[in-house]
């Protein structure tokens, strides 16, 4: 599902060149849950954004579902992202003025004429958010927000789920819910790449890789 070959990313900043990733190669098959562990600043988020078609690599190759998103036009890449990749972030990035239902439905905006409301409600029910369906993020607990974000990531039935510290801000109970969902997603022939420095998360992964200073150990 996901192949990364010699992926490098260099940032040019005012303080000089920063090598965020250096010749990273890995693969995640369908039904596989891979965790990448590493301390802060090790390049985890850069890896995730590069895999997600959001950050053009300085070198190397990324293939998702047999397609290199960086060979596509920006519009096609956006469409590819919407249809193939799901994102879950530590900061949730929920839209503050939208209800739980609308937040879950946001990915459907990428597809004109999309009717995803039943799928959204199904996910909301699955994440035990039915009684919060009309609430805006400001009225939700941290766990509820992350569950909402997870539901949103799964709306379009992605093939690859990218999770950036999905349980970093959660208590054990909520973390277990989220990680169970990721595991469940992987078992239903999805591929999960999770970056985290949380040991709880690593327990659910089929494979755990260590990233340090932009290099896989």
């Amino acid at each position, binding site marked *: 599902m996901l192949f990364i070959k010699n992926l490098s990313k260099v940032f040019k900043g005012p303080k000089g060149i920063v090598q965020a990733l250096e010749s990273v190669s890995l693969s995640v098959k369908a039904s596989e849950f891979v965790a990448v562990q590493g301390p802060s600043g090790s390049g985890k*988020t*850069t890896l995730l*954004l590069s895999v*997600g078609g*959001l*950050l053009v690599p300085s070198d190397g190759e990324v293939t998702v579902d047999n397609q290199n998103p960086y060979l596509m036009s*920006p*519009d096609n890449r*956006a*469409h*590819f*992202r*919407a*249809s193939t990749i799901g*994102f879950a*972030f530590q*900061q949730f*990035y929920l*839209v*503050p*003025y*939208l209800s739980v239902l*609308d937040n879950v*439905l*946001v*990915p*459907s*905006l*990428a597809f004109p004429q999309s009717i995803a409301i039943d799928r959204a409600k199904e996910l909301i029910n699955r994440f035990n958010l039915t009684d919060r369906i009309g609430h805006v993020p400001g009225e939700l607990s941290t766990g509820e927000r992350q569950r909402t974000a997870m539901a*949103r990531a799964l709306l*379009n039935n992605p093939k690859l789920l990218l999770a950036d510290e999905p349980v970093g801000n959660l208590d054990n109970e909520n973390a277990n819910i989220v990680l169970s969902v990721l595991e469940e997603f992987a078992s239903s022939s999805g591929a999960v790449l999770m970056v985290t420095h949380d040991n709880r998360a690593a327990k659910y992964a089929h494979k755990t890789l260590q990233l340090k200073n932009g290099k896989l150990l």
Partner: protein
Amino acid sequence: MTLWQLVIKESRYQRLSFCLGILAVIVAVGVLVAVLTILRSHDLQTQKILALKEEEMEKEMSIMEDDYRKIMKILGFNLLILPEGQQLSDFYAEGYATKDMPEEYVERLSASNIMTIRHLLPSIEQKIRWPEQRMRTIILIGTRGEVPFTKRDPMEPILVAVPPENIVLGYELWKSLNLKVGDKIKLLGKDFKVSECHPQRGSKDDITAWIDLKQAQELVGKQGKINAILALKCHCLGNEIENVRKDIKNVLPNTQVIELASRVITRAEARDRAKETAEFVLVSEKNYRIKLRNEIEEFAAWFVPLIILGCIVWIGFLAFNNVRERKAEIGILSALGLRSKQILFVFLAKAVLLGIFGALIGCIAGFIVGLASGETVFNFETVRTLFNPFLFLVVMLTAPILAGVASWIPALIAAKQDPADILRNE
């Protein structure tokens, strides 16, 4: 959920910012509509004032016209009947007619039934040298007094005839020759008795000698001839003088008729002058109204664009602020697969939305302000007249476009933002 729903929900969430945006459009549209309504109201009032004044002037002129007609009827006017071949240029140069016509013409006229002519005075007039008085130049006029109309009751004559062997002298003649009434004098070999001495008139009359027509004809060798018939105090209404001319020409085809300058003409001129003055007042009022309009227009010419420009900048600033505040949202929308043009749409649609709301409220508010500030009285008819559907249509179309233009750059910035950059740095 659709993008429009997203835009509406965001606008409701960011109420203050959205209301400030609407306010900007209301101000811009309101000022424009108000100024245009005031100008329209001014034009309407100008039309009303001018129409009223014109009507008043017409009424006054009609009354004046009627008054003068009555005056003309009382005063009558004077006509001079001259021989057909008489060049008027010679007549005016010499001061009398040089051609002559049969004296019988006056009898023909007196026998006619032209009721508008009242007094007939035939005369022969000629400039001569007075041999007995060192060849001095005088004007000799032979007159037989007034010729009565045979088909009418006799009227009191306005001029008495000079009896034969009598002479009436102008001021300059009797004064310089030291003559007085009763003195005997000789003219062209004939003896005359001075029967009257005229006071000074300051005209050619002062060197004129009046004698009996027949004697004058003999003295100048034009027996049975006259060179003018004066028709005095003719009655005529308005412009019927042309008809009188025609009537005279029917009786005396070989003549020409001219109207002598008279008080009637003077009065007519006075009436014309009065009309001119009234028209001048009307034009002055019109000019004043135009000047006032130009002043409003000049003020509006810089004020309205300035306000609109200010509002555009204001909307642009609000949009820019909106983009800045929604950075994370833009990042996640992009990450979740929204295309650049969809992001652009989210921001432009908001601008269009506030443009529509603002234009609608601004149109109504501006129209009410324009009505209240304008010169016309507030009533249904005024509202109906001042309401300009075309202006409303243009404003309703233009305001959302301008709001979109104002938000274009911030929306473009939003669409071009790198989601990875946002998500990494948030």
